[in-house]
C-alpha cells in the first residue's frame, strides 16, 4: 500500500478530476443532472406561459390553507373577517384553553362598560400577547397585570402587527374607555407591516391564510391606508384572479409568489429560492430598514395621538422571541435590533415597556419562559411581563408601589440614552 504523503494529494486530485469529468467518470450521474437541469429550466420558463396564475396559487396554498380560507369566509373559523383589521377574535367562544368573551377579549373575568375598577387597561397585539392555546385566561399577561385597582382586557389577536393594533383601537376598542392602552409588538418583526396576504409573508401559517389592510407612507410621510374587504376578496380563492390582481398592485410580498411560479416547482431552483428567501429574511432581521421604521413610528404616533384624544395613555410593550432573549453564541455577534429600536422609540418620545428586560429580570432560562416554538410565552413569562406592565401603570398613575415594583419600573421602562435591555 502506498501511504506516502503524496498519495493524500493524489487522492484528492483524483476525486476532483473525476468530478469535473463526470461525463466520463460517472455517465449516469452526469445524465441525471443534465436531465434534472432541463426539467428545471422547462418548468421555470415554459410552464408559467401555459398554466394560469390561479392554478399556481392553488398549488402554493396547501390543502389546509384552502380549507381554512373557506371556513374563514363562511364564518366557521375561530377568527372572523373584519373590514377594519382583516380579522378579529370570534366573540363568545370556549374551546379548551381558548375562551373569548362577548366583547372579543380574553380576560380573567367578566368586564363590561358599566362595571369597572379604578383603572382599565386594554392589551392588544399578536398571539404573543393573547397567549394562544398554551395558557389559560388566568395565565395571560393581562391577568397578571391586574390587582385590586387594575382590570385588564386582552384583545390580543393571532398574527396582528402594529398596523392592525392601531386599526383595532380605532374601530373597536376606543369605545371601551380604557385608561391605558398597551400595544404589544415585536420591534424586530416588520414583515406584517410590509405584507397584506398572510400566505405571502408567512406561508407556514396554514391556518390563517387571510388578507389584511396595510399602510404605506405617502409623499408627505403620513401613513396612507390600503383597505381590504376580506370576505369578498377571499371568497373566490384560489380560482378568482381578482385577488392576485389586487396583490400584484398593492402587496410588496407578491414577489414571493412570482418567484414561486418561476422557481418553486423543481428541487434545485426551489432549493436555491428557499435559501435566498431565508437569507433575505435573515438580513432583513439584522439590517436597518429606514422605510419600514418610519412607517412603524408614524403608526405609533397616530395610535398615541388617537388614544390621547380619548384620554387614554399608550404604552408600547416591546416583546422578543427566544433567540433575541438569549442572544447566545453567534447571535451575540449580530446587531441588537430590539435594543436599538426600543431606544429609538424612547428618543422619539414614546413610552416603551421592555418585555425582554422583564423576562431577563426573572433569571429563568429560555426554556422556562418560552414554549417550544420560541415565540409564545409560558405562564411564568406572562407573569413577569404582566407584573412589569402593572408596575409601570401604577407608577404612571401615581399609585402606591412596592419596592419590587419600583425596581421593576426602573428595569423595564426604557430610558432614553440606554440601549434597551
Amino acid at each position, binding site marked *: *500500500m*502506498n*501511504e506516502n504523503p503524496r*498519495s*493524500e494529494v493524489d*487522492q*484528492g486530485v*483524483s*476525486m476532483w478530476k*473525476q*468530478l469535473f469529468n*463526470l461525463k*466520463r*467518470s*460517472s*455517465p*449516469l*450521474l452526469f*445524465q*441525471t443532472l*443534465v*436531465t*434534472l437541469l432541463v*426539467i428545471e429550466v422547462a418548468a421555470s420558463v415554459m410552464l408559467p406561459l401555459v398554466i394560469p396564475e390561479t392554478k399556481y396559487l392553488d398549488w402554493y396554498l396547501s390543502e389546509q390553507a384552502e380549507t381554512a380560507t373557506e371556513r374563514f369566509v363562511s364564518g366557521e373559523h375561530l377568527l372572523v373577517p373584519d373590514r377594519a383589521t382583516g380579522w378579529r377574535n370570534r366573540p363568545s367562544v370556549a374551546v379548551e384553553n381558548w375562551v373569548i368573551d362577548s366583547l372579543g377579549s380574553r380576560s380573567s373575568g367578566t368586564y363590561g362598560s358599566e362595571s369597572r375598577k379604578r383603572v382599565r387597561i386594554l392589551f392588544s397585539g399578536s398571539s404573543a400577547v393573547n397567549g394562544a392555546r398554551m395558557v389559560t385566561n388566568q395565565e395571560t399577561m393581562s391577568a397578571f397585570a391586574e390587582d385590586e385597582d387594575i382590570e385588564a382586557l386582552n384583545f390580543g389577536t393571532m398574527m396582528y402587527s402594529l398596523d392592525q393594533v392601531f386599526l383595532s383601537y380605532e374601530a373597536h376598542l376606543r369605545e371601551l374607555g380604557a385608561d391605558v392602552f398597551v400595544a404589544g409588538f415585536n420591534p424586530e418583526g416588520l414583515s406584517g407591516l410590509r405584507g397584506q396576504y398572510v400566505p405571502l409573508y408567512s406561508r407556514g401559517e396554514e391556518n390563517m391564510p387571510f388578507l389584511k389592510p396595510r399602510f404605506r407612507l405617502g409623499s408627505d410621510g403620513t401613513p396612507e391606508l390600503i383597505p381590504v374587504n376580506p370576505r369578498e376578496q377571499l371568497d373566490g380563492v384560489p380560482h378568482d384572479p381578482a385577488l392576485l390582481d389586487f396583490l400584484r398592485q398593492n402587496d410588496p410580498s407578491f414577489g414571493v409568489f412570482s418567484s414561486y411560479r418561476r422557481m418553486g*416547482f*423543481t*428541487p434545485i431552483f*426551489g432549493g436555491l429560492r428557499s435559501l435566498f428567501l431565508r437569507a433575505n429574511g435573515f438580513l432583513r432581521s439584522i439590517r436597518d430598514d429606514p422605510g419600514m421604521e418610519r412607517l412603524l413610528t408614524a403608526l405609533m404616533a397616530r395610535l398615541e395621538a388617537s388614544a390621547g384624544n380619548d384620554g387614554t395613555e399608550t404604552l408600547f410593550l416591546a416583546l422578543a422571541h427566544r433567540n433575541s432573549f438569549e442572544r447566545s453564541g453567534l447571535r451575540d455577534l449580530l446587531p441588537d435590533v430590539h435594543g436599538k429600536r426600543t431606544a429609538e422609540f424612547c428618543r422619539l418620545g414614546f413610552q416603551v415597556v421592555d418585555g425582554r428586560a422583564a423576562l431577563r429580570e426573572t433569571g429563568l432560562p429560555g426554556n422556562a419562559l418560552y414554549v417550544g416554538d420560541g415565540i409564545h410565552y409560558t405562564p411564568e413569562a406572562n407573569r413577569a411581563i404582566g407584573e412589569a406592565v402593572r408596575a409601570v401603570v401604577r407608577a404612571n398613575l401615581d399609585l402606591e408601589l412596592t419596592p419590587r415594583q419600583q425596581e421593576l419600573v426602573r428595569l423595564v421602562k426604557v430610558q432614553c440614552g440606554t440601549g434597551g435591555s
Partner: protein
Amino acid sequence: MNFATVDYLAFMVVVFFVYWTLNRRWQNVFILAASYLFYANWDWRFLGLIAVSTLTNYVCGHLIHNSSSQRSRKLWMVLSLLISLGILGFFKYFNFFAVSFVGVANAVGFHVSYFTLNILLPVGISFYTFQAISYTVDIYRKELEPTSSLIDFAAFVAFFPQLVAGPIVRAKEFVFQLEEKRTFKGEDLSAGLSRFLFGFFKKSFVADTIAINLVDPVFASPGEFSSGTLWLALVGWTVQIYADFSGYSSMAIGSARILGFRIPENFNFPYLSTSIAQYWRRWHMTMSNFFRDYVYIGLGGNRGSFSRTMLNIAITTFVSGLWHGAGWTFVAWGWLHGLYIVINQTWRRWWKLRGKPKFMTTLVWLIPAWIITQLAICLSRILFRSQSFGDAWVFLKGMGASPGMGTIEVPTLVWVAFGCILIDHIAGWLSERRPEVGKGIPLWVRAFVFAGMVVFLYHARPASVDPFIYFQF
C-alpha cells in the same frame, strides 16, 4: 440525525469531500470521528457505552487469538459475550424482565413490589452489539484474525451508515475493507447516490405517506373503523414497514458505497416469498443470517433429530423476537414465526417424503403458497405493531367483525405509494427471472427516471419526517 433530512445530506456532503482528500489511515480516523459525531447527534450521553463495547471486544479478540489453550479461548469469548450482552440486556431488557418477574411472582402468591429503573435505550445498541459479537465469535471460530488497529475496529463498530439500524455487518465482511486502500471511483459515487435515492424515495414518500394517511389513524383507534378498513390498514402497515426498513437499508448501503465501502444487502423482495423459510431468506437478511450462524447453528442447527431441530428453531425465534423489542408481543411474534417455520418444514418434508418435490415448482403450488405465506406474514404484523396482547386481539377481532363502521378517505398518493412497492417487487421478480431486461434499459431512460423521482419527491414527500421504525430496536 435522520437519513431522510437535509441535515444528513449536508453532513454527507462534508464527509464526502473531506474523506476523499485523505489517505487510508486518516480516512479511517475521519470515519471514526464522523461516526461518533453522527451518534452524538442522536444522544451524546451514550458515546461512552459504544466506546466501552468497542474496547472490550477489541481486547477480548486479541486475548482469544493469543490464547494457547481452547479453554482460555472459550473463557475470553464467553467474557466478551457476557459484557456485550450484559450491556444490551441491562439497557434494553432490565425493566421488561423486572416487570415480568414481579408479574409471575405475584401470580403465584409471592408479593413483590415493582422495581423498575428509569433507563434510556441507547440508539443502535442492538445493532452495534451484534456487530461486536460477530468479531469475537469469528475470531474464536478461527474464521477471522483480530485487527491490529483499534482505530479500524472502532470505525467498524461505529460506522455511521449502518450504526443505528443496520444492516448488521460482520467483522469479516468489513474490517478488511478498512485495511485496504480505497480509491475514489465515479462508478461508486453514481451507484451510491442512486441507491440512496431509491431508499430515500421508499422511506420519505412510500412509508411516510402510508403511515400518515392510513396506518397511524386506523391503528390509533381500530374500534372505530370497519373490518375492511382494518384489513386495508394492515396491508398498509405491511407495506410501510418494508418501505421504511428497506429504504433505510438502501440509504445505508448507498452512503457506504459513496465512501467506497460495500455492505451486505438486507432485503431481497420479501413479498415475493412463497414460503416462510424463503421469507426469512429475503427479509432483514443480515439479522436472520446472524441468528442462523450464531444461535441456530450454535445450538446444533438441523444436525440432530427433527424434534431437536424444531427446538432449536423455537429458541432462535424466541431470541429473535426478544431482540426486536422488550415486550411479550415481540416474543410472541417471534414464536409465531417459529411455528410458521415448523409447519412449513413439516409440510415440505411430507411432500418430499412422498417423492413429489417437482410439484412445488408449479403455479398450482406456488400461487396458493404465496397467498398463504403473505397472509401469515401480514397477520403476524398485528403483534408486531400492538403495544399489548389486548390491543392485538381487538384489532384481530375487528378484522373479522368490527364494532366500528368508519372508513378512511385514502388520498390518491397512498395508492401511488402502494403502486411503487408493487413496481418494486415486479422489478425484483423480473430481475430474478429475466436479468437481461434490466441491463437493456438505456442510460437516458434511467437518468430520466432518477430525475423524475427527485422532482416527484420534492412535491409528494410529506412535510413531517416520521422516525425510522427499526430505530426503536
